[in-house]
């Protein structure tokens, strides 16, 4: 293996990537999946983790282009150069460019996108070309690669681990840390007294607490919550979510960000999503929602946006008349703004900053004020 002259490498282990545009040779889902699979190849052998962003500057910007495309390294039409990438660093560094004059395919009938992406991402992480013909980082594209049994060669693993070391935990170690491991600076800490959540939802008897690119998963059988990257379960979801709620009748969780929402069943995002939130019946003035909770018994879903709320009738599949109403009128003591909301044990739980309001919907009053991270048994 070889590394770039000067040994450029990322000084952080959590990297962002963005798929800037798409080739017409493949469906968007196929491109998304190929990139995710290619990132996972490197994620599995290093401490590196990746999360996808949809706008702005990511560490790794991934794009398709033909001929001259603004980096003084023009592509050359079909064949010959199929892609290139830049060593770790700011701006164009770390980026991946695919030559869209190639025929990008999911199999090896054309140029396999996954295989090329895995190679180019090796460059984005700091690997140069290897002279080992078995290595992924060998410069010549090998159309006979067995995709079903693709594995990094030892040469590739030695190369990337010379830059970043091995993954933090061997597979047989427990997923949930047995002792409190102080998180890396950019990771949220469940014991941070100021911890607030972006979104909270039940899921088949569990409770998910979303924050930034991560979420805690509280399960009935585990005292300590698990901590995961959102992208580990839902690679296509953005980070910094706005709201989430479970639809018990549909066995789905709806995830909201900006003016879009996704439907997930388990960790499968349902076809046809994301959709616009206005398809649920919100007026155009609502640009995003702050929180959502589902009342399992009454089959109603409550949506909170700024100082107002709406109620959605699960049976009629439409927003109820007479809404929006003011949160302060019907949930006195809650607010002013709601970050996340949850129904459990007959109570509504409203998360606002580092505080959590337990609200009795029958007595129509706040019965307890707790810390937001109270559920996580810090």
């Amino acid at each position: 293996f070889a590394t770039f002259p000067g040994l450029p490498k990322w000084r952080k282990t959590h990297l962002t990537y963005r798929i800037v545009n798409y080739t017409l040779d493949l469906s968007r889902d196929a491109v998304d999946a190929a990139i995710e699979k290619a990132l996972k190849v490197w994620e599995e052998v290093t401490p590196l983790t990746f999360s996808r962003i949809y706008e702005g500057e990511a560490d790794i910007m991934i794009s398709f282009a033909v001929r001259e495309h603004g980096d003084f390294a023009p592509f050359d039409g079909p064949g010959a150069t199929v892609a290139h990438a830049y060593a770790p660093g700011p701006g164009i560094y770390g980026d991946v460019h695919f030559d869209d004059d190639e025929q990008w395919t999911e199999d090896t009938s054309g140029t396999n996108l996954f295989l090329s992406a895995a190679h180019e991402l090796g460059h984005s992480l700091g690997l140069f070309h290897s002279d080992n013909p078995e290595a992924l980082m060998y410069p010549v594209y090998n159309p006979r690669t067995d995709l079903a049994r693709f594995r990094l060669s030892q040469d590739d693993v030695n190369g990337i681990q010379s830059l970043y070391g091995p993954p933090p935990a061997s597979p047989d170690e427990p997923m949930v840390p047995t002792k409190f491991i102080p998180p890396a600076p950019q990771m949220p800490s469940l014991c941070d007294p100021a911890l607030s959540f972006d979104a909270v939802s039940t899921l088949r008897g569990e409770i998910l607490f979303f924050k930034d690119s991560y979420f805690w998963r509280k399960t009935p059988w585990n005292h300590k919550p698990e901590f995961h990257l959102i992208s580990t379960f839902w690679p296509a979801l953005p980070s910094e979510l706005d709201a989430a709620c479970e639809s018990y009748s549909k066995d789905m969780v709806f995830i909201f960000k900006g003016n879009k929402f996704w439907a997930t069943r388990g960790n499968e995002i349902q076809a046809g999503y994301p959709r616009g939130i206005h398809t649920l019946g919100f007026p155009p003035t609502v640009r995003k929602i702050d929180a959502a909770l589902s009342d399992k018994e009454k089959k109603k879903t409550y949506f909170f946006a700024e100082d107002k709320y709406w109620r959605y009738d699960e049976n009629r599949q439409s927003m109820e008349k007479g809404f929006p109403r003011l949160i302060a009128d019907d949930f006195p003591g809650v607010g002013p703004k709601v970050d996340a909301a949850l129904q459990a044990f007959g109570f509504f739980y409203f998360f606002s900053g580092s505080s959590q309001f337990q609200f009795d919907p029958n007595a129509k009053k706040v019965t307890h004020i707790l810390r937001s991270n109270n559920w996580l048994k810090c």
Partner: protein
Amino acid sequence: YPLAGAVKKDSNMDLVQQYLEKYYNLANGMKQLVRRKDSITVGKKIKEMQKFLGLEVTGNLDSNTLEVIRKPRCGVPDVGH
């Protein structure tokens, strides 16, 4: 001098010249030398490429070498720029 007939444009030499410039740091100014084929530098560069790509190191443009040069590949150089 041998009759200065029109130098037959050897597309293989063009191909190898571009390849060596792009991936093996052959300086652009070597253009003329490449045409004369007897340049020590180009022979060295061809050997460097053949060694890196796992080919028989002959320093010549044999069919194996030409075949590999024509294969699709990554656009990042093989030796440090």
